[in-house]
């Protein structure tokens, strides 16, 4: 790293000071020289990104066309791995599971966040609001692994959730939430809600504070209810922020790994297996690199396909 810095420094130091006259005489040459120096500034970041992100991505695509156990020779199998992933209900199921997680990681935090943020905007000004925002944001900064472990315990049979349910007379519904075939996925999804709700709330609240206060004032002078304010002002004018929240949370849902790995490891059965977990299992416990890579490519493509429309939403909103 220092070597690269001094190199750049030398190039720019050797460069003659650029008085206006020299720029006029050979504008092309100067411009080219400056373009090269500019690219040298980008180069270190670009190299790290290319070697440790883009290259592995291309390798994923390459591996996905081969049969390989990680050690022996690679055999070209064409699109076999893809058809295998799409035909195997366990593998394809991971994609459906992650789409179901999108409901919990994305739609619930964003819609609930909108409601909470607008309530905060109306009723919690000043110090109380600031404290509320700090507290709600907390789950966003702790390691996701810790969130998974904490909730793994809270949702266990003797955990807090069941105790609360028993206390309010709902002993019948108590269960080991994360070990239940029907409830494990919603339970994991609930952990996602806990982690992401604060982020969405604070982001949407910030967007609301940037709106013209006169809008709210005139609405409130007319006696507008919270609901009118919500549907007429907040939702239409926060399209940009809503788009951002959806993008971030959808990526979090589709790329989920940490929370699932520590809370259920994909179980019971395959009921909470998501692509991230399945890729890990296929590649590192079953040594089936081909299908693992095909699933990785499908996952990457899926994220892009789902979030591109949100980006368009943003662009329209800003225009």
């Amino acid at each position, binding site marked *: 790293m220092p070597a690269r810095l001094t190199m750049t420094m030398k190039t720019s130091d050797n460069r003659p000071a650029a008085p206006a006259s020299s720029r006029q005489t050979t504008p092309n040459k100067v411009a080219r020289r400056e373009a090269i120096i500019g690219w040298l500034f980008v180069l270190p970041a670009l190299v790290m990104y290319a070697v440790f992100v883009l290259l592995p991505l291309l390798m994923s695509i390459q591996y996905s066309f081969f049969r390989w156990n990680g050690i022996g020779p690679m055999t070209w199998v064409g699109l076999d791995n893809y058809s295998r992933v799409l035909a195997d209900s366990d593998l394809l199921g991971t994609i459906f599971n992650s789409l179901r997680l999108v409901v919990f990681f994305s739609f619930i935090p964003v819609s609930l966040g909108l409601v909470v943020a607008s309530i905060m905007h109306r009723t919690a000004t000043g110090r109380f609001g600031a404290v509320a925002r700090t507290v709600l944001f907390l789950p*966003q900064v702790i390691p996701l692994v810790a969130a998974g472990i904490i909730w793994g315990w809270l949702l266990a049979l003797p955990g807090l959730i069941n105790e609360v349910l028993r206390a309010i007379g709902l002993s019948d519904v108590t269960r080991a939430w994360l070990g239940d075939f029907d409830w494990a996925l919603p339970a994991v999804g609930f952990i996602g809600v806990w982690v992401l709700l604060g982020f969405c709330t604070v982001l949407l609240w910030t967007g609301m504070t940037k709106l013209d206060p006169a809008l709210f004032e005139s609405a409130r002078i007319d006696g507008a209810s919270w609901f009118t304010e919500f549907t007429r002002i907040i939702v239409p004018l926060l399209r940009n922020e809503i788009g951002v929240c959806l993008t971030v949370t959808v990526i979090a849902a589709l790329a989920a790994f940490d929370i699932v790995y520590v809370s259920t490891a994909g179980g019971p059965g395959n009921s909470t297996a998501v692509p991230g977990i399945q890729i890990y299992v296929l590649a590192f416990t079953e040594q089936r690199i081909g299908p693992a890579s095909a699933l990785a490519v499908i996952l990457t493509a899926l994220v892009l396909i789902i979030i591109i429309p949100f980006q368009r939403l943003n662009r329209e909103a800003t225009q």
Partner: protein
Amino acid sequence: MRIARTELYAGRMLLLGLMAITILPFISIFVTALHPSGTLPRGLEWPADPQWGNFVEAFNVANMTALLGSSGYIVLAVVPVALVISTMAGFAIGQLRIPGSRILLGLFVFGLTLPFGGIIVPLYYLERALGIYNTRLAVVLPLIGLYMPFAVFWMRAHFVNMPIEISEAARVDGATIWDLFWRIHLPLARAPMASLGILMSVWTWNQFLLALVLVEDPTERTMAGALGAFQGHYATNVPLLCAGTILILLPTLIVFVLFQRQIISALLQGSVKG
């Protein structure tokens, strides 16, 4: 402003309820951590005889001294390098507007969407080939690369909003591009760099998947990575597991309380500008 008093109270009660739901899990594991090691306590019951020693035991069995060293090393290796190179790149793309900067920006932004799972398998084989598998560099180098999309994007957003006239004035006075960067723009970029640095430190501390796959020895991992191994060993000893979890998330909580304004604004602005 006319907001009915009932609405004011109802709204605040709702927010208090949400705050309670957010905080209660922390309180629950804290209380659980104080129960005798190996027992299965009930949700929120304060122990008859609080076992503060559980924290010491968790500290020892998790080999926390080695872990703190390892995580500290990884953070110190990742963050400064990532900060310097992303600032330089952001400067060239946002302020110098070098030819091809739109394409470069698009290339980096593409990386923002990339799930780690999409590249983890080849990273493993790439690192074996490079001979850095199972060393701390195994986590350090990919993390620097993986942070580049957000970091370059974030720094570019700062530089693109700096008036170009500052640069032009300096250039007329004969400043080289390096002078321009080092003497003029870097001092002005301290605030966004600080936010980015804090954010990347927390992310590094919390990084799990890379550490899990690329480093076999838990004591050479990041904190979050080690927590995964700790859970594997002590899954049945709930009080100890809770004590270990608290120890590992405590530093992130402290950093958050100290720098909450930078962290929140960086996370929000970073995503809004995306």
